[in-house]
C-alpha cells in the first residue's frame, strides 16, 4: 500500500498511528478486559456455591453475566459490517460497476456472495463492508472490528465500500487510525454473530496467507 498519510488522520491527531505493535497491544487489552469481566463473575458463582448451595440461582445469574458480557462486545464488533438498507436500484448497479473495477474476479465473486471485500494488507487480511471492516490477524484466530464510514447518508452501498477500500489501499495504518476499534477478540466470537451470508468471507480471510504475517500473539 502507498506511503502517503491519509488526510483524515489529521482529524484524529490525538491518536497514535496504528501499527502492528499497537494493534497487538490493543488486542491484549481487549483480552485482559474480557478476562476482567468473566473471572469475577465465575469466581463469585463458585464462592456462592461453596459457601451456600442454596444460592444456586444467584450463581447461575453470575455465570450468565460472565457469558453475556463478552457476547455483547462481540455483537458490537460484528455489527460494524452488518448490511444497511439498500437504496435506489439503478444507483446501486452503477456503484457496483465502479466497485467491481477496483478488484479482481475472485474478490468480486466474494463480494457478490457476502457483501464484503477481501483486501490483503500489512496488518492482516481485511474484510471491508459499507460501514466498517474486520481485520483478521494472528493466523486467523483474532478479529479486530473497526467502525468507519463515509458521512453521506444517500450513497449507495457499493460506493460506501469503495470509499473505504480506496482509503485503506492508500494508507492502511492511517485507515486503522481513523477507524474506531469496536472489538478485538477470538474469531469464533465474531463468527457466531455475523449474518450467515458473511461467514464464507471470514473463512476465506482466515485461510489467507498473510493473516499472521505481522501480528502474532505471544
Amino acid at each position, binding site marked *: *500500500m*502507498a506511503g*502517503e498519510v*491519509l*488526510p*483524515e488522520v489529521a*482529524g*484524529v491527531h490525538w491518536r497514535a498511528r496504528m501499527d502492528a505493535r499497537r494493534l497487538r497491544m490493543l488486542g491484549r487489552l481487549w483480552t485482559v478486559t474480557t478476562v476482567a469481566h468473566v473471572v469475577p463473575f465465575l469466581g463469585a458463582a463458585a464462592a456462592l456455591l461453596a459457601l451456600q448451595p442454596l444460592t444456586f440461582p444467584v450463581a447461575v445469574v453470575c455465570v450468565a453475566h460472565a457469558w453475556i458480557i463478552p457476547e455483547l462486545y462481540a455483537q458490537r464488533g460484528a455489527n460494524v459490517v452488518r448490511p444497511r438498507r439498500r*437504496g*435506489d436500484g*439503478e*444507483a*446501486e*448497479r*452503477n*456503484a*457496483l*460497476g*465502479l466497485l467491481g*473495477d*477496483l*478488484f*479482481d474476479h475472485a474478490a468480486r465473486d466474494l463480494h457478490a456472495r457476502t457483501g464484503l471485500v477481501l*483486501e*490483503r*494488507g500489512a496488518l492482516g487480511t481485511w474484510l471491508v463492508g459499507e*460501514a466498517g471492516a474486520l481485520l483478521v490477524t494472528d493466523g486467523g484466530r483474532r478479529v479486530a472490528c*473497526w*467502525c*468507519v*464510514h*463515509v*458521512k*453521506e447518508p*444517500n*450513497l*449507495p452501498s*457499493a*460506493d460506501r465500500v*469503495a*470509499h*473505504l477500500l*480506496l*482509503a485503506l*489501499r*492508500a494508507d492502511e495504518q492511517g*485507515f486503522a487510525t*481513523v*477507524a*474506531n476499534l469496536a472489538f478485538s477478540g477470538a474469531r469464533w466470537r465474531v463468527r457466531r454473530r455475523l449474518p450467515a451470508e458473511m461467514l464464507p468471507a471470514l473463512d476465506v480471510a482466515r485461510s489467507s496467507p498473510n493473516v499472521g504475517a505481522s501480528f502474532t500473539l505471544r
Partner: protein
Amino acid sequence: MSKLVRMDNTGHTTLAEWRADDPEAIERAVAAFRAELDRGFFAMVSTGPGHAEQVRELPVDAELVIMRLPISGG
C-alpha cells in the same frame, strides 16, 4: 480515454473524459477536478492491485481518477 468520476448518490457521475493529445479536454478535466477538490472531495488513483494513491493534481495519464468523500470513525 481517461475518466474523472465522482462517487455520489447516483452511483457515480462522470465529470470529464479526456485523451492525452486533447489539450482542451484536459483543461476542462483539470477545471472539474479542482472544483471537486474545492468541494471537499479527495482524488484517488489506483496504482496496481491493492494499491491506491491520493493525488492533488490531475494525473493526465491515469485511466481513471475517482473522487471520494472523507471517511471517519463512528
